[in-house]
């Protein structure tokens, strides 16, 4: 005890001079009696998580100034006692305002012996936020970009004087990498190895809405949380502590969504949000966790993106109106005369759609008009002269992101290939493929990480059949307004027959690009992609092969539960080992529930001049 006080006095020379050192030792003693350092409140305020290997904990924040003790990152008690000591010196009380509030609550500071510092800077900021409730905002995927499927989360601070019509005026808390890096590749690589510090920042919600809704065309989901004023207050105070802090992230787990949950869970001592995410902290999983806590989510608001609204508008318009709207958006002469021939409501709808579509094209960098901002203004001026209310259709709220299937998947299956029976165990770490049910996801957008299959043949024993770390496919339908490219990138190891008769686990990198069309009513999609592939394995002639080919297929939903993918693909390997592999097949998925599905697949394949049939039935479980 005395040694500790000596140590504290040495570390904080101001302490002895500033205040009553006897009172500090009393507080330290009481905090030990109450075991405050072991309480969940303290663990959350300093963001301690159990070590992966061995006993003990570590703090997730990485800037030294977040800790008052040099041992603070690993030693909760040392940190708590050093924090108490720091309260006796100037300025630390305001920097650690949430810690002060909690320690004061527990230890009942005597203001005569430890005066509470006034924090005007905090007060000004706190009053500007004027927080009354909190909302977790989930930005879903880009409409035709599966790579954004993980989504992104923000925490919105809703003020007392706002309502649902004025939510743009709220502030949002963003947890993100801090960098001015413009090069996407550098950003991605450095980001993965923790090259940029992650920080918390506050900014007007409208900035994020403009960015997600209007620029990136991502639908927003606002999960309004049922928290008491005191609980909201705890989060706001802790946010203040986090503003100067930073963290280094690690691939997948310690990401922005995870740290946002770390902030949110200080609201209640018993609220545990970060625990289940030791391995996977996808933003969409974070909304799932919130939705599963009984009574935590008060209400969910859907905010469709610009492109979503345009698509909904187009469905209500005639072919002629669509044509006029498109001509208007491109500034074609004559289009405005065509508008004058329409009834006011029709003219309004056409002008609104033309403007929104022009902005969509601008946001995606493809506006055709000579001076898009000027044309946009002219369309609005024209619209303002029409006497009709806003013609935007009422959108049906789609299934929420937390209502979709779980992102991890296991499959138990059995099948027969070329006369040989096999059993198969499959595992996919994450996230969604085109055969999974679409509720809460984007149809045609596939992103899978670590798709793995183990197969057992009676003759050959158990072997690794497939290990695909990354597999992305975007089947984005085209129409007269939207012309996205469909594309595919995949890389990993997969068994295949080669010319010497063996079936090695060949390393391969595939890519492709093409187009997709969808039927009216969204029941069927057809797609075609030109593809290229690079493969390497020492069993290949020359050790590698390079090929080019094509793939065509159709996705059909005969019933909401049943999906069929019928496909044909072929390739010519023209460098390295020569071959012309080809395959045709049918895949079926029948959903038995949200997290259970049956898969029945048939294929006929030609590989290294072998021709064989294969069929399999498997049960898939999502979690």
């Amino acid at each position: 005890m005395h040694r500790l006080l000596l140590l504290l006095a040495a570390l904080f020379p101001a302490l002895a001079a500033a205040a009553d050192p006897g009172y500090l030792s009393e507080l330290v003693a009481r905090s030990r009696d109450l075991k405050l350092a072991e309480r969940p409140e303290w663990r959350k305020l300093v963001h301690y998580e159990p070590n992966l290997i061995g006993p003990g904990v570590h703090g997730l924040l990485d800037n030294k100034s977040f800790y008052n003790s040099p041992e603070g990152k690993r030693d909760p008690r040392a940190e708590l006692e050093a924090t108490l000591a720091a309260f006796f010196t100037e300025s630390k009380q305001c920097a650690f305002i949430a810690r002060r509030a909690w320690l004061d609550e527990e230890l009942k500071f005597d203001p005569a012996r430890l005066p509470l510092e006034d924090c005007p800077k905090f007060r000004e900021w706190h009053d500007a936020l004027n927080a009354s409730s909190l909302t977790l905002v989930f930005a879903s995927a880009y409409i035709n970009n599966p790579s954004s499927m993980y989504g992104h989360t923000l925490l919105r601070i809703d003020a007392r004087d706002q309502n649902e019509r004025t939510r743009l005026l709220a502030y949002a808390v963003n947890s993100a990498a801090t960098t001015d890096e413009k090069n996407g590749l550098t950003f991605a690589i450095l980001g993965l190895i923790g090259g940029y510090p992650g920080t918390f920042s506050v900014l007007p919600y409208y900035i994020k809405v403009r960015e997600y809704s209007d620029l990136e065309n991502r639908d927003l989901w606002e999960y309004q949380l049922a928290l008491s004023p005191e609980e909201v207050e705890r989060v706001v105070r802790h946010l203040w502590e986090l503003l100067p802090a930073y963290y280094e992230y690690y691939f997948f787990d310690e990401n922005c969504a995870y740290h946002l949950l770390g902030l949110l869970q200080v609201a209640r001592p018993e609220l545990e949000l970060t625990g289940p995410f030791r391995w996977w902290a996808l933003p969409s999983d974070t909304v799932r966790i919130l939705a599963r806590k009984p009574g935590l989510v008060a209400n969910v608001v859907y905010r469709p993106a610009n492109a979503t609204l345009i698509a909904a508008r187009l469905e209500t318009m005639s072919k002629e109106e669509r044509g006029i709207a498109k001509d208007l958006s491109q500034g074609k002469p004559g289009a405005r005369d065509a508008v004058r021939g329409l009834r006011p409501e029709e003219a309004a709808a056409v002008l609104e759609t033309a403007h929104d579509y022009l902005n969509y094209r601008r946001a995606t960098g493809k506006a055709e008009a000579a001076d898009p901002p000027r044309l946009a203004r002219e369309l609005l001026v024209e619209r303002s002269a029409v006497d009709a209310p806003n013609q935007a259709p009422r959108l049906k709220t789609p299934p929420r992101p937390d209502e979709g299937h779980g992102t991890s998947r296991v499959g138990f299956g059995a099948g027969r290939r070329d006369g040989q029976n096999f059993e198969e165990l499959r595992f996919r770490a994450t996230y969604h493929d085109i055969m999974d049910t679409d509720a809460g996801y984007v149809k045609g957008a596939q992103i899978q990480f670590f798709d793995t299959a183990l197969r057992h043949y009676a003759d050959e024993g158990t072997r690794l059949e497939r290990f695909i770390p990354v597999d992305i496919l975007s089947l984005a339908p085209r129409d007269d307004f939207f012309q996205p490219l469909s594309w595919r990138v995949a890389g990993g190891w997969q068994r295949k027959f080669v010319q010497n008769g063996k079936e090695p686990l060949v390393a391969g990198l595939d890519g492709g690009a093409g187009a997709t069309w969808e039927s009216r009513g969204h029941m069927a999609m057809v797609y075609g992609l030109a593809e290229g592939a690079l493969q390497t394995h020492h069993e290949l002639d020359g050790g590698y092969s390079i090929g080019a080919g094509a793939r065509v297929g159709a996705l059909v939903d005969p019933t909401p539960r049943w999906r069929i993918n019928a496909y044909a693909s072929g390739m010519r390997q023209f460098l390295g080992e020569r071959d012309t592999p080809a395959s045709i097949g049918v895949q079926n998925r029948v959903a038995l529930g949200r997290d259970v599905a049956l898969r029945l697949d048939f294929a006929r394949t030609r590989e290294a001049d072998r021709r064989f049939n294969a069929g399999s039935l498997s049960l898939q479980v999502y979690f």
Partner: protein
Amino acid sequence: MKKLLVAVAVAAVVPASAMAAGENNIGNCGWGSKLFDGQSGIAPQVLAVTTNGTFGNQTFAITSGTSGCTQDGTVKSNWKTALFIDGNKEMLARDMSVGSGETLDSLAHLMGVEAQDRAAFNQVAKENLWKIFAADSTADIVANFRQVLSANEQLARYTAAL
């Protein structure tokens, strides 16, 4: 932490509301032109795989352009309306063109437009869109809007809120 302390010290000497109502203008404050820089192409999409779920999107690295107008992310009250208009120009014009919408409602709320004046406010904005948005810069838009409001008997008193 030192940086925060310096910021605290600097902010302490800046008076909280240096400007009276009516003197509000955009000055050096603004969100910058990044708002409508679109991105396209496959390469950024593929790269986004690793960046998006792993850490936050940074289309807006707002560090400059708002210094002096914000404090730890919150907009100082005397800049609120101007910065709102600056950050929402396109959607504000869009809402004015139909005479309704959340961007227009939010602006009316910021300006303190009372419930009984909202319909007139929306209608005047709609009818005068061509005047208000005759310019590109936020300062000009604000000036035009002020002029339009001052010409209306019912709404003239809100000119000071711009």
